């Protein structure tokens, strides 16, 4: 006998199954339209790229060449990011937020050293709405005084305070300033109140937005959107962007030059030391050196495995387990910085800084086993692939690649380049690090933290 309740449950389940099917447009094994590669194009002068990944959600980003590197006045890029998704000529801040909440989406605006990114994550069907929204934010934002005073200024102030309270952030910014002076060396947050008390006001920010969101300076990148559909909507909505920038970003567009030097900042909150060397540009740039990425993962510091110091040289030679060491290869469009960040107790930081220099000397002398280099190559490749596969990082890299050289970031090529790095190349790269001037920044207890010269570095 069939009871009533069980019959009903079966009916409900069959309805559910029917409901799920349209969301999964493709089976798991079937490839999406192509692969992880981006397809790029241009609609009414606006560059765009998309990859049609299977899945019910999509991510759309407007990447603009307006990071802190390109700002004509301090703090502009940050302020413009905080102004995103506020009152526009068509909609108020509140309406934008409520509408995007109703559609179940996520809006984000942030800036890095080179790019300003407006990002939206949403359900696939809502693509036209969000293309329109991003175009509206980029071209029709109202830069009202009261919005600045009531909403934007407090955020800039918080970012400033957070920056001051973080020795690591200060050290990284200081190392960039030493390495590149202006341009890439510009701080990503205000290091004093001067930028926003003396340089910024809504009309200046509005002027910068006319440059930042001009057609040659932006790229639209989408994940999980159909190429033809994206082309159609970008052509329709992004035509409102200014065709030419208000003023050319002449100074910042010059080739970045590496300088190097040493800076020491007293700080009571903690100790951080950054030892930086000239690195590699991004894969879409002209000075791409895959051996720098491998060298970075060979120095390392982080462990990929729990409860173990890992295989990296610095992971094994750091002064104490509580000392945090991390080697990063920051890649920008035309230059890069390979830097090791050390944080922890002052004495341990000092000892670990010495270990960094010793490690580089060891690599340059060829005292590293083949096995370790193999591990480092594999780790670098994995890191790069994993990073590129993350939707967010991929979006920004692709957008930047499009703006600078009309070339999207293709992970497959990068992986191939890393695979081809030879032992000799790594040795030579390490040698060249010791010959160039380093950028060394020490923040914290200056009585204990060593000078670059004492470590055996040229500054």
């Amino acid at each position, binding site marked *: 006998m069939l009871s009533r309740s069980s019959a009903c449950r079966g009916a409900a389940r069959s*309805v559910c199954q*029917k*409901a799920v099917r*349209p*969301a999964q447009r493709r089976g798991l094994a079937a490839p999406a339209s192509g692969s992880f590669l981006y397809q790029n194009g241009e609609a009414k002068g606006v560059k765009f790229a998309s990859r049609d990944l299977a899945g019910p959600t999509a991510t759309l980003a407007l990447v603009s060449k307006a990071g802190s590197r390109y700002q004509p006045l301090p703090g502009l890029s940050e302020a413009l990011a905080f102004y995103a998704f506020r009152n526009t000529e068509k909609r*108020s801040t*509140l*309406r934008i937020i*409520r509408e995007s909440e*109703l559609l179940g989406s996520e809006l984000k605006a942030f800036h890095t050293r080179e790019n300003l990114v407006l990002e939206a994550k949403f359900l696939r*069907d809502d693509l036209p709405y969000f293309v329109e929204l991003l175009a509206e934010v980029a071209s029709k934002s109202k830069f009202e*005084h*009261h919005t600045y*005073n009531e909403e934007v200024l407090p955020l800039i102030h918080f970012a400033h305070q957070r920056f001051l309270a973080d020795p690591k952030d200060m050290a990284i910014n200081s190392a960039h300033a030493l390495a590149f002076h202006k341009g890439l060396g510009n701080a990503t947050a205000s290091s004093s109140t001067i930028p926003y008390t003396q340089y910024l006001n809504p009309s200046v920010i509005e002027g910068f937005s006319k440059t930042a969101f001009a057609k040659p300076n932006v790229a639209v990148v989408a994940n999980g959107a159909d190429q033809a559909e994206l082309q159609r909507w970008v052509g329709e909505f992004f035509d409102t962007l200014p065709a030419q920038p208000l003023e050319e970003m002449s100074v910042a567009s010059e080739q970045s030059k590496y300088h190097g030097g040493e800076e020491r900042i007293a700080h009571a909150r903690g100790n951080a030391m950054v030892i930086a060397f000239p690195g590699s540009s991004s894969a879409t740039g002209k000075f791409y050196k895959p051996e720098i990425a491998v060298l970075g993962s060979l120095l390392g510091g982080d462990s990929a495995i729990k409860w173990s110091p890992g295989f990296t040289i610095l992971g094994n030679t750091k002064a104490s387990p509580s000392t945090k060491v991390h080697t990063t290869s920051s890649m920008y469009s035309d230059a890069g910085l390979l830097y090791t960040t050390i944080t922890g107790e002052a004495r341990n930081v000092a000892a670990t800084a010495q270990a960094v220099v010793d490690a580089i000397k060891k690599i340059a002398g060829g005292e590293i086993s083949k096995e370790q280099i193999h591990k480092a190559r594999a780790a670098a490749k994995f890191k790069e692939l994993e990073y590129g596969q993350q939707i967010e990082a991929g979006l920004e890299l692709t957008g930047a690649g499009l703006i600078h050289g009309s070339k999207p970031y293709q992970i497959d090529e990068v992986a191939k380049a890393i695979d081809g790095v030879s032992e000799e190349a790594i040795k030579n790269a390490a040698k060249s690090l010791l010959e160039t001037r380093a950028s060394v920044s020490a923040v914290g207890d200056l009585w204990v933290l060593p000078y670059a010269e004492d470590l055996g570095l040229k500054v």
Partner: protein
Amino acid sequence: MSAPSFAPAILKRQWLSKWFAPFAKWYVNAAGYRQLGLRADDILSEENDVVQLALKRLPAKEAYDRSYRLRRAFQCSVSHQLLPKEEWTKDEEDTPYLQSIVEQIEAEMKEREDLEAMIVTKRAAHKAEGH
């Protein structure tokens, strides 16, 4: 805060506004604030959140001028005097510098109320799919 007023309705009809103009002029002069150098928006009731926020949004110069006019008017009031006739507020100076901001804030608040009271319905496309 903006009070209910017939003014917009009257201004819309030219014949009516022409008819009302002399009376309005007489009324504004009889109200006496112009003789103290004030503007109509200076005597807007400010003991509420909307006007307080509007005052915060005034440009620095406007805010300074406003407080100057108010102080001067207080001074005149306590000394039981009117300003010399050439310092009285002229017709063209009596502009609604605060009213427009107040209206903007009221529109913002109304939008918020409207959005709070919104009834959400499913889109037809999603209804058919069952989610």
